[in-house]
């Protein structure tokens, strides 16, 4: 039998199965089990959640493989892990361990300030962050099988996630309104591969799944991102930095599914306790803005 592994369909398809779901950052087996029990569609195994990475400072790297392995053993849902931007060897290490998805992530300190990983070379699928359509299509051009708008990780502030989702979707609407003979100039202007701009026009959407990330802290935040057209949400610090992680995790999962059922959102938002403490974006200095990483 002719079995083909690591094909585009298989890699992108994995992300399609995550749609409408919540992917949660976890740092140990106990958190992973809480996430799974709450209905997470996957967990992101990390050494520290983004808000702790901010607090710790210094260089943030791929997690110790022991942490990733412990999480993989603890749950049956897919396990993702982060590699630094451009860090080919961290990515190969994670692939060899059998993680289900690699996030080439701006949350970690970049290893390469010019080039991203050539993700089409790998059997394991990749997710990458983007702030606009051009950035997203460049990542797809390199082989990303899933996108997430970047937001500003570890802030608990949804404003950047909203900005990036609106930007990406607004630019897709622009593409839709253009004549075919205008697409090359548009591709040049946004720095995107021409063939992928044409594909966006043909499909009327991105060719891969696009989640929202970077700032989701409440069920209403998750519902907002779904309303703005996200295919699902990543929640980083928002769950395990809240007062009651189990409750927040369950409520955010349900709010992501039933994002237009406002009566249900009322109930889901009640009595959750204190969400993670947020950061006002204008108080972040330029070098603390993780979203600027990636090119």
């Amino acid at each position, binding site marked *: 039998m002719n079995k083909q*592994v690591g094909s585009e369909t298989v890699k992108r*398809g994995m992300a399609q199965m995550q749609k409408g779901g919540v992917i949660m950052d976890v740092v140990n087996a106990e958190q992973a089990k809480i996430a*799974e029990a709450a*209905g997470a569609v996957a967990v992101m195994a990390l050494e520290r959640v983004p808000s702790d990475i901010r607090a710790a400072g210094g260089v943030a790297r791929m997690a110790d493989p022991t942490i990733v392995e412990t999480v993989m053993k603890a749950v049956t849902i897919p396990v993702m892990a982060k590699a630094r931007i451009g860090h080919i060897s961290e990515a190969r290490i994670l692939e060899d361990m059998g993680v289900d998805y690699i996030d080439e992530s701006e949350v970690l300190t970049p290893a390469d300030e010019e080039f991203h990983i050539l993700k089409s070379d790998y059997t394991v699928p990749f997710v990458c962050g983007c702030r606009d359509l051009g950035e997203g299509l460049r990542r797809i051009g390199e082989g990303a099988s899933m996108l997430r708008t970047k937001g500003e990780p570890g802030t608990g502030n949804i404003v950047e996630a909203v900005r990036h989702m609106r930007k990406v979707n607004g630019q897709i609407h622009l593409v839709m309104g253009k004549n075919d003979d205008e697409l090359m100039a548009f591709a040049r202007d946004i720095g995107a591969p021409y063939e992928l701009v044409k594909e966006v026009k043909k499909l009327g959407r991105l060719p891969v799944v696009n989640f929202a990330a970077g700032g989701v802290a409440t069920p209403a935040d998750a519902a907002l991102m779904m309303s703005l057209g996200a295919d699902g949400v990543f929640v980083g610090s928002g769950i395990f930095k809240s007062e009651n992680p189990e409750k927040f995790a369950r409520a955010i*999962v349900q709010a992501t*599914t039933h994002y237009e059922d406002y009566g249900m959102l009322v109930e889901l938002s009640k009595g959750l306790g204190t969400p993670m403490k947020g950061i006002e974006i204008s108080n972040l200095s330029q070098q603390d803005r993780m979203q600027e990483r990636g090119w």
Partner: protein
Amino acid sequence: MVKRVGVLGLQGAITEHINQLKQLGAEGIAVKTPTDLAQVQALIIPGGESTAISRLIQQIGFYEPIQQFAKNHPVFGTCAGLILCGSSITDGGEKLKPLKLIDIAVTRNGFGRQVDSFETPLDIDSIGQQIPAVFIRAPYIDHVGEGVKILAKIDNRIVMAEHGSVLVSSFHPELTEDNRIMAYFLKKIKEENS
């Protein structure tokens, strides 16, 4: 008349099924609450994460309404949908509660993790030859109960089966351009009405 098919709209590859139904002239409707079942003649439980979907089924009170619906309407489960339609799960534990719509025992992630996920052409009894089949962290059927017809196997593992109006596949027909499997499922609606 246009056939109206519900796709359980809690989590997973929902629009992919709706698009394929549209290609075949049927109407696909995302079913998000038990009352939505009244609008449709058949139900597809899509691929996604079985533990997540199972939890959402129970939270919104879908468990019994789907079981009732399946008594006189066709149901098609793909991947996670197959797991949820099954009668028992080898490694499920307390994590998920199968709907017991078809007598099959299921092993989840039976072919390995994502790096082992694959696509392959598949010959399927009653449906066709060389149908592209996409397996993503796919389950397989350990064994089937009485009356369950095995439709396809890979490496001697059962990957597609049916019993009456319940159809299940380990793989994702909705991720391909080939709509023969969906066409086969839609024919079950006609059988029901006649």
